[in-house]
């Protein structure tokens, strides 16, 4: 209030005084280390005079009249500062200023979707991360770096496979069959983010985010509540992640800035499987063999088939003598120390009326799996130019190539084979030097099969901004997100075992994603301190996926393969000479969105904040009856610390209470599920047939989440301590389910709005700076988010109506999304060594039947979070990030084979704790080769014996860095020279007995992805890396 008063006085004063304008103010602006600070906006209040500090932190303002002035200094990341100065007539005043880094970043401007807002004025729940936080460690995909840094955002890091993506969940999971990932928006474009373009092929789903270069990203904003996400309407209910790429930097205005960074590192698996060696396997196998022969004499009724007599015959028909001669360590054969390298170079300039940044990147990310790597090569050009005073054109354009040398699914290739059917008694080579092929030989597969996927990704946009007046801005933008995936597979004769020389296959696929939008923004001041911002806009998006194959003019047929090929298409392009690529023959798919939206922000004296948002969306994924949906939200905020009763409080430096309520939706389902389609493939008795393919549901509509959010933002002790406490309640209705229909309906499945899901939770974050001196500082970031998830309805269907694929998760009313639905294991009967299960009523039984399944676990954790400690000491810095997860479980699905019926699977050393004689109290039952002995007719015995608590604390990132002193590098003409050592996944504390307590595996479909994180099936563990990085700016 006082400030306002003095500002008004000054304003009046400067208007009334009329003197010669010959006076000036000059000075140097420095940072907290007394180093010159460039790019600071220096504004003399009450005048139109301003300047920006140069590389040496200097500014100069001329043409002032004599008098007293207040000068305002402002730059991102520092507390805005005002300082008074008297300028005598004919004199030149000097005003040197030292800026303090801002800790609460309240005055920072953040991206909110179709615009920006000052953080202080935001009523929604938004987490903002800057580029530094996203590139502080090497990750296979940028979203992995969010883990532990954004409260309420669960990132389940992908496996150690190159280029693998993470599963990101914002405030729990509000979807079952519709895509549960947040909406990713890059520079305003909702990008193609389909994880199932290639279905479930290979050891990891295709990661649509892998081609984004983390070094290109300026900031990431994660919108969490309805106040923030409603502007994205039908696509916001699982959160929105806004990615803004870098533009011409402000460090040295008018000059070209160069940035170079590189990182070189090595990696290894975080854990290796403890499989049996040859001798151990032979011992277990023989024990099972003879156990069965003995048991059959007394209990033949237990056996589904009489056990063979005589001496053991090993899988593949191998004899004992042969087995003893071999001891292959397949895990060792399939892994290596990986080498990763990354190079980035960028040049940028920020001049008067224009800015640009051009970046080049090369990244070769090997994984520890042999012959698995992901190479990214790309370029980006971003820039803005003022065409006239009022019209600005902004361009973002990027082209990337991702080259992915892939590995097979766990059970057939890679480390997974070593953990399953590649037995230690199998040799790699026969005596004559040829590959052994009498059993699973992953080395043979790896060496002979070529599997490469080449992705071309180009995301482009152009935006015109027209400042009609200083209160009215119009924008129009168009964008095109193009993705081309070409998958090449080659299998030579030896692998396919035919008379052909080899089969080369190629599967081209394109996704073309258009988006146009236009907005109008109008600033309106109704009265002093009553400010309105109006936004109205419209947006159209069209996405089409087309699949290619090749026309062969010789026989007028279409094909994706050439038999009798000597190599893959990428090395033998002549194979394609006679073929014509065609994108029209195979069925494709597409969808469209049309939207109108508006937003009103009303702020009273910067203290009382109101926001109303409404978006109307239409999606082609729904029928005419339910095509349009309306998604409103209301948010309010109260900056209590600006009230008189807190204004001068010594302890409380900032306090804001905010609350919002609104509705967001989700429309991420396969296209055209709402209407009946018909097929005509086949015939009967030579006559054509016509039959329905999709069971129509004309009432299909989006799922809707009603979200209530209340939060308190706080700052204590001059913002030495800041943070936020938030509570949310999110209730999803009409959840989209791909229901397995009762078969009497005559269809397998169809889509319907059936489910209701509750997510509610609290989030707490705190940033404290216990020590801040000129030479030493310590900063702690801590966050924890607790989420409660429950399915409250699935419309009367059974638990099996929606399943997490083969992962044995089911939808159970009263339990969370991703409930492990399993038969309960009781114990091993000491008398007989046979397993004892619990039936559905909790009574002991020796028969395993899926009818006894109950909800026994959940893959969603209760609480997640992260702790970052950062220290600086002179030019050194050190930081480490711990991430943790509490209350979730892991289902180790493959252990039912690794520790179950003795088959052609290798086993783990835990099997030594088995029953061998009456009276034994053992974890695992007597060894057998017949599932009948375990009361089952299948060796796939899913029980909660394989379900483990998955609490963990992981040292995710450890970084130590050194910045060469300013004085030294100045003499070299360099702005920044930093070297650092980075270690990731250094260690993990957990009671989970398997490889990695954090699992994002290859999923079958969106339902599986929503329900079955943290279920492992031969999933490779994450990678531990050690890297050296160099950053040079000049």
């Amino acid at each position, binding site marked *: 209030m006082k400030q306002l008063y003095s500002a008004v006085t000054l304003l009046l004063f400067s208007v009334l005084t009329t003197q010669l304008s010959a006076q000036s103010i000059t000075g140097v602006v420095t940072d907290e280390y007394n180093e010159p600070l460039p790019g600071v906006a220096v504004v003399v209040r009450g005048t139109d005079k301003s300047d920006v500090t140069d590389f040496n932190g200097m500014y100069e303002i001329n043409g002032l009249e004599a008098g007293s002035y207040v000068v305002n200094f402002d730059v991102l990341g520092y507390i805005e500062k005002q300082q008074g100065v008297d300028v005598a007539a004919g004199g030149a005043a000097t005003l040197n200023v030292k800026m303090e880094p801002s800790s609460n970043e309240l005055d920072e401007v953040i991206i909110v979707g179709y615009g920006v807002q000052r953080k202080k004025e935001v009523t929604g729940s938004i987490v903002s991360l800057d580029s530094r936080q996203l590139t502080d460690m090497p990750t296979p995909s940028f979203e992995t770096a969010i883990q532990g840094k954004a409260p309420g955002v669960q990132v389940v890091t992908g496996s150690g496979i190159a280029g693998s993506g993470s599963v990101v969940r914002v405030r729990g999971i509000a979807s079952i069959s519709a895509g549960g990932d947040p909406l990713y928006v890059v520079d305003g474009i909702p990008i193609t983010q389909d994880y199932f373009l290639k279905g479930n092929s290979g050891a990891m789903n295709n990661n649509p985010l892998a081609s984004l270069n983390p070094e290109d990203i300026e900031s990431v904003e994660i919108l969490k509540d309805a106040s923030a996400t409603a502007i994205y309407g039908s696509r916001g209910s699982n959160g929105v992640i806004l990615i803004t790429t870098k533009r011409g930097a402000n460090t040295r205005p008018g000059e070209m800035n160069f940035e170079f960074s590189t990182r070189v590192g090595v990696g290894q698996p975080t854990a290796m499987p403890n499989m049996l060696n040859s001798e151990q396997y032979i011992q277990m196998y023989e024990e099972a063999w003879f156990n069965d022969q003995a048991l059959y004499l007394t209990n033949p009724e237990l056996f589904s088939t009489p056990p063979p007599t005589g001496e053991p015959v090993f899988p593949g028909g191998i004899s004992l003598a042969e087995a003893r001669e071999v001891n292959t360590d397949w895990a060792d054969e399939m892994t290596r120390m990986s080498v990763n390298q990354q190079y980035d170079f960028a040049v940028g300039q920020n001049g008067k009326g224009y800015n640009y940044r051009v970046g080049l990147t090369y990244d070769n990310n090997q994984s520890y799996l042999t012959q698995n790597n992901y190479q990214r090569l790309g370029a980006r050009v971003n820039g803005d130019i003022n065409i006239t005073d009022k019209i600005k054109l902004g361009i973002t354009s990027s082209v990337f190539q991702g080259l992915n040398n892939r590995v097979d699914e766990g059970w057939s290739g890679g480390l997974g084979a070593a953990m399953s059917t590649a037995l230690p008694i199998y040799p790699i080579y026969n005596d004559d030097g040829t590959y052994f092929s009498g059993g699973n030989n992953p080395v043979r597969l790896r060496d002979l099969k070529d599997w490469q996927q080449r992705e071309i990704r180009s995301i482009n946009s152009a935006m015109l901004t027209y400042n009609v007046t200083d209160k009215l801005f119009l924008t129009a933008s168009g964008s095109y997100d193009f993705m081309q995936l070409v998958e090449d597979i080659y299998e030579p004769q030896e692998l396919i075992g035919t008379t052909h020389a080899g089969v080369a296959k190629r599967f081209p696929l394109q996704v073309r994603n258009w988006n146009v939008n236009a907005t109008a923004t*109008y600033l309106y001041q109704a009265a002093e301190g009553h400010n309105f911002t109006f936004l109205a806009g419209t947006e159209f998006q069209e996405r089409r996926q087309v699949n290619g194959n090749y026309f062969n003019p010789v026989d007028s047929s279409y094909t994706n393969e050439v038999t009798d090929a000597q190599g893959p298409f990428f090395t033998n392009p002549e194979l394609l000479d006679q073929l014509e690529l065609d994108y029209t023959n195979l069925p494709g798919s597409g969808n469209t969105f049309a939207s109108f939206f508006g937003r009103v922000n009303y702020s009273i004296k910067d203290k009382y904040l109101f926001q109303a948002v409404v978006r109307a969306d239409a999606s082609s994924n729904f029928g005419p009856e339910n095509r349009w949906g309306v998604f409103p939200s209301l948010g309010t905020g109260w900056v209590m610390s600006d009230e008189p009763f807190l204004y001068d409080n010594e302890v409380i430096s900032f306090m804001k209470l905010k609350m919002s309520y609104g509705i967001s939706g989700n429309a991420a389902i396969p296209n055209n599920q709402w209407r009946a389609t*018909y097929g005509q493939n086949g015939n009967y008795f030579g006559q054509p047939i*016509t039959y329905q393919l999709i069971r129509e549901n004309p009432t299909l509509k989006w799922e809707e989440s009603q979200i209530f959010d209340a939060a308190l933002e706080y700052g204590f002790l001059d913002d030495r301590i800041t943070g936020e406490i938030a509570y949310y309640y999110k209730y999803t209705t009409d959840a989209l389910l791909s229901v397995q229909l009762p078969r009497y309906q005559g269809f397998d499945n169809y889509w319907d709005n059936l489910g209701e899901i509750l997510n509610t939770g609290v989030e707490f974050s705190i940033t404290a700076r216990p020590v801040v001196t000129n030479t030493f500082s310590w900063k702690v970031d801590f966050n924890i988010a607790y989420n409660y998830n429950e399915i409250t309805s699935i419309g009367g269907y059974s638990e099996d109506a929606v399943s997490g694929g083969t992962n044995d998760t089911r939808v159970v009313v009263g339990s969370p999304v991703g409930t492990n639905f399993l038969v309960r294991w009781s114990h091993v009967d000491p008398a007989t060594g046979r397993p004892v299960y619990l039936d559905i009523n909790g009574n002991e039984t020796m028969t395993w039947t899926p009818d006894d399944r109950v909800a026994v676990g959940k893959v969603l954790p209760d609480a997640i979070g992260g702790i970052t400690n950062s220290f600086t000491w002179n030019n050194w810095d050190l930081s480490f990030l711990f991430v943790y997860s509490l209350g979730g479980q892991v289902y180790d699905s493959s252990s039912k084979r690794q520790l179950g019926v003795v088959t052609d699977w290798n086993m783990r050393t835990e099997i030594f704790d088995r029953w061998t004689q009456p009276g034994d109290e053992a974890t695992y039952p007597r060894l057998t080769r017949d599932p009948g002995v375990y009361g089952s*007719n299948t060796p796939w015995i899913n029980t909660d014996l394989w379900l483990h608590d998955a609490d963990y604390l992981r040292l995710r990132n450890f970084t130590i860095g050194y910045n060469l002193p300013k004085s030294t590098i100045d003499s070299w003409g360099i702005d920044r020279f930093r070297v650092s050592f980075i270690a990731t996944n250094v260690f993990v504390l957990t009671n989970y007995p398997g490889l990695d307590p954090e699992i994002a595996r290859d999923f079958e479909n969106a339902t599986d992805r929503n329900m079955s994180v943290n279920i492992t099936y031969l999933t490779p563990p994450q990678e531990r890396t050690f890297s050296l990085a160099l950053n040079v700016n000049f």
Partner: protein
Amino acid sequence: MMKKQIAKFAVIGALILGGTACSDFLDVKPEGVLLEGEAISNQQDIENVLNSIYDVTANVYNGRMQAFSTALGDNINRPRTSTFLQEVYGRQTNIFNSDVSAVYLDAYRAVYRANWLLENIDLVDVEANRRQEILDEARFLRALMHFEMVRYFGQPFGFSSDNSHLGVVNKTATIRELVPRNTVNEVYNFVISELEAVAQRLPESNGIYATKAAAHGVLADVYFQMNQFSSAAAYADSAISGSTTTLMPGFNRYEAGMNTEIVFGGYSFASLNDNRGGSFAGFFRWDNQPNPNPELTIDANTYALVTSNPDDIRDSVWFSVLNQGNPNEMIVYSKFNYDFMDVPIVHLTKLKLTRAEALAMTGSDLGTAIQDVNDIRERAYGSNAYNLAPTATSTEILDAVRYERRIELMCEGDRIHELKRLGVLGEIQTIRGADWDCPGQVLQFPAVERSDVFVLNEEGGC
């Protein structure tokens, strides 16, 4: 002022874009498939839908469904490798048996398509007589599927005195709703009323498609299964007299194009590479492999029964012993050793066996019964040496016809239904060592059938 203008622009924009242009933009046609208007535009399209019901019905009968009867019965050994069939054999099918689930789904696919036709035939103009025929054929197939499913998924007719025990869902409309199972009584009533209704109108001859005789033939099976013998005999009789079939001299009943006995069945064509008996071959065929190892082999006791009469030609035609004297000795079955097979569903041999047994049970017209048995026997033994005497008693006829039925229809899908029927009559107590009416004698429904209103079958096997 400015605010008003913005609002005006927004409204105009919304009207323009939200109108016709927008609805086109938002109507994204699926590729590679047809929409309803494109798929169903004339009478031929309706014929195509009917044809697709025959298509999926033939798939139900391609050997998969019949294997369940064979596996539950007493003629074969435990299936060699298929855990799903082993479950059926072990009378322990569970909710995840995808072989069972697949057949059940296909049966109800046929039902859905029939219901769709009944509800939508008037989408296009169909010539009036043909319209009625199409609907009757669809209803025939729908009833047939219900009859098959209730026999596999419910305890047999007669298991409870009023047949109030649960059967399958009578599905008579495409409406999507969760419904409870109908009682066995309700299912049989539905099947009979449908078949009797359409039998009155179905044509005498209709190519390979449903005829009056076909409906009568199925009704004979239905009433026979219900142990209602006079109706069974009457319908078998009219099916025989109403069709132009003749008894085959040989035993290649399944060889495509060779069977002259078929009143109704599935047909395969080598020329179209269209095979409707593939699963029979998959389970039994052994003659096309260097080291035969078929999934299903004949039980030694069954084989001993067949070989008990050295003059039985069927022994050498249908049975072979491989690896004799070795540990891997097996008795294999040759009935399905063909690349392409026709699958008789209603056929003369079975009709005669049914008529003979039904007549013997009622004690009337024993002459016809004896003649039926002797027709079968003369073919089986190559002479009249084993013919029943014209004076044979009902008991003698029954002994003869039940023996011949077992051997003639072996592995064709009849056996478990026959045994259960005899169980209801009290003539047998057990089937392969387990009570004829123990829970495991019926197949378990797929997991997804269960709902608040749909109760699954009892678990626990036998």
